[in-house]
């Protein structure tokens, strides 16, 4: 009797999973929900859920509701793989992740292996933030899609901006000592040499990641080098503490960064040490871009989360928008069909203009903005983190000027 009951239960199990999948299409959000990076991870989760609500109030995708299922990876590569397996075991076929390139590399390799071993059970990996160029070059694969401009693309934008500013003559590079920081410095050296051979690189620093509490010695070094501009790919406390130390000691240089604008915690630090339009960042969009739809979205978002200064990233909006479009184009939730529909797909991006998912490497190309943080003009309604200061667009770099070469050779399913 017991055996029969067990067999009956086993028969029911896949059925119940199937019944659930009927109601909604699920994306597993595997990211940092505890520990040091949690502030970013939780904010991004809220943004994805906000976007899913938007999709669902408009009737969902192909009649199904979109659901974001959170998994905590503790910013750990091993843990991410375990969580991804858990997600797949529960029937999820789409994974999204963004924080930490080491995690992204582990996930993309895991997804590739999984898909090779389980034909018919393919999984897609939507990477919304990890920007190590290796992901769309040496380690690229058919199942991985990147929505954020990778590190090389961002450097292309920064150096194009520097190229047009002849007053910059001496540049100091300071980056975190791991694969991402090293790729930032390598790209900076290569592109500066090509675009502005007259610029002298007066320093090239790698410091341990997230271990430095006092950046004054680094600031002293930058000052001693006589640099008039600094390029840094730093993020999190490594950027906030560096800029704070620089500001409070009165170091007068311009900062060209990846994350100096539109990341949590930085605006407060900059206002504290009074760095007014000294810090520049490159991003796919900021609140003050003069484009009605994005400003309208920003208002709705801030009405809900503005008091807690929760940030979303425009690339998240683009990702969900394209996922919906791809499913509707493919008329299916089959991962392979969606992946094929995403290739070369062109959309109107969140902050206006066209963006395109390049087929060769699955890297998304979009207009990029160089913005600086400081006092606002009257036409700019949005400040950041209650500081009264906000982000101003200094330059827009069109998508076609950010195209980089890729060494990606992916095998596609037949």
């Amino acid at each position, binding site marked *: 009797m017991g055996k029969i009951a067990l067999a009956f239960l086993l028969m029911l199990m896949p059925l119940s999973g199937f019944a659930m999948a009927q109601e909604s299409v699920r994306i597993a959000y595997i990211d940092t929900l505890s520990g040091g990076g949690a502030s970013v991870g939780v904010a991004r989760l809220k943004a994805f859920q906000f976007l899913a609500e938007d999709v669902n109030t408009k009737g969902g995708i192909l009649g199904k509701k979109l659901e974001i299922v959170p998994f905590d990876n503790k910013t750990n590569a091993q843990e991410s793989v375990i969580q991804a397996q858990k997600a797949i075991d529960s029937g999820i076929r789409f994974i999204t992740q963004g924080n930490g390139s080491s995690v992204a590399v582990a996930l993309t390799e895991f997804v590739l292996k999984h898909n090779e071993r389980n034909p018919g059970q393919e999984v897609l990996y939507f990477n919304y933030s990890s920007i190590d160029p290796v992901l769309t070059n040496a380690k690229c694969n058919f199942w991985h899609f990147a929505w954020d401009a990778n590190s090389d693309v961002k450097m292309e934008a920064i150096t194009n901006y520097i190229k047009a500013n002849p007053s910059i003559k001496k540049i100091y590079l300071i980056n975190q000592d791991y694969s991402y920081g090293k790729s930032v410095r390598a790209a900076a050296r290569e592109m500066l040499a090509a675009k502005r051979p007259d610029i002298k690189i007066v320093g090239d620093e790698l410091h341990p990641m997230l271990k430095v509490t006092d950046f*004054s010695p680094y600031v002293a070094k930058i000052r001693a080098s006589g640099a008039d501009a600094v390029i840094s790919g730093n993020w999190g406390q490594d950027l*906030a503490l560096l800029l*704070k130390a620089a500001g409070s000691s*009165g170091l007068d240089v311009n900062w060209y960064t990846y994350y100096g604008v539109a990341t949590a915690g930085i605006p407060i630090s900059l206002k504290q040490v009074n760095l007014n339009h000294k810090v520049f960042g490159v991003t796919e969009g900021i609140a003050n871009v003069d484009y009605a739809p994005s400003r309208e979205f920003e208002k709705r978002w801030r009405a809900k989360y503005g008091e807690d200064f929760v940030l979303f990233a425009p690339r998240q909006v683009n990702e969900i928008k394209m996922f919906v479009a791809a499913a509707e184009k493919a008329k299916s939730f089959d991962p392979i069909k969606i992946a094929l529909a995403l290739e070369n797909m062109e959309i109107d991006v969140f902050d206006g203009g066209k963006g395109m998912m390049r087929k060769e490497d699955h890297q998304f190309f979009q207009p990029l903005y160089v913005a600086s943080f400081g006092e606002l003009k009257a036409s700019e309604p949005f400040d950041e983190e209650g500081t009264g200061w906000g982000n101003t667009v200094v330059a827009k770099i069109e998508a076609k000027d950010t195209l980089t070469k890729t060494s990606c050779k992916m095998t596609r399913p037949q």
Partner: protein
Amino acid sequence: MLELVIISALNGVLYGLLLFLMASGLTVVFSMLGVLNFAHAGFYMLGAFFGFQISKWFGFWWALLLAPIIVGLIGAAVERFALRDIHRSGHVAELLFTFGLAYVIEEVVQIVWGKDPVDYRGPPSLDFPAFSIFSTNYPSYKVFMFAISVAIFVALLIVIKRSRIGLVVQASLTHPQMVAHLGHNVGLVFTLVFGVGIGLAALAGVIAGPILQTQSNMAASLIALLFVIIVVGGLGSLAGAFVASLLIGLIQTFAVSLDGSLASLFGPLSPDAPQFLIRNIWTVTIAQVAPIIPYALLILVLILRPMGLFGTRET
């Protein structure tokens, strides 16, 4: 060159004193009570957040006064109602308890203040450059921090070594029964000492918060470095902690400004040397390894002089 040396020396001393400010409470608790308090950095963080909240309501100076007292009282309560009972079960139980407490504090801080950094600033009255050397400004807030650190060092030294209270406290640690028979309340002494140690941690938090980032993960990165300081200085030695803090501050600061590597000393390796391992070690600069040097120092001290620079007993 001279410029960089002077600036680095100044930066090193300032950083070292900040480290001492954070480590002083830990040393007091360890040397007096023999409790290795893993939650110390947690209380330091609690101090920073209380400081932020109180300074938002009443101003920075009130925060400087009230936050250490409130957090110190919390610390005293922890000693009285938890640690005292656990003490009987030995050091491992204490260690585990404070370890768990550190997590609890972090979670509580995240629930109350969130995970993002908060906008905690020093007093406007100290918001001007105190002096400037080679066009580097030194904010008066850092000078204020310098003064507080030195004052705490001197005050603690006097209280422990020269005052009656210090004598009773020291005696309570080694001969608790005898002290109790002489009519002192040993339990109360322990509670007070723990409270003062935690209060010092909170004071460090109030002062360091505006310079560093006041965020719910500020404790995690700190505790390891603080243990290095008290082990290198000699477990339980206040003077040792002071010297070790300055030493580590200076070493780290100077190491950052040095770009030398084995390659620059002995010339590049021949091209047929193995790429793996050797080449990496050969080209890494001193600046790159600077933040790891304290831990190397820790290992050296434990091997060569286990009681630390100024310690009196084996670790």
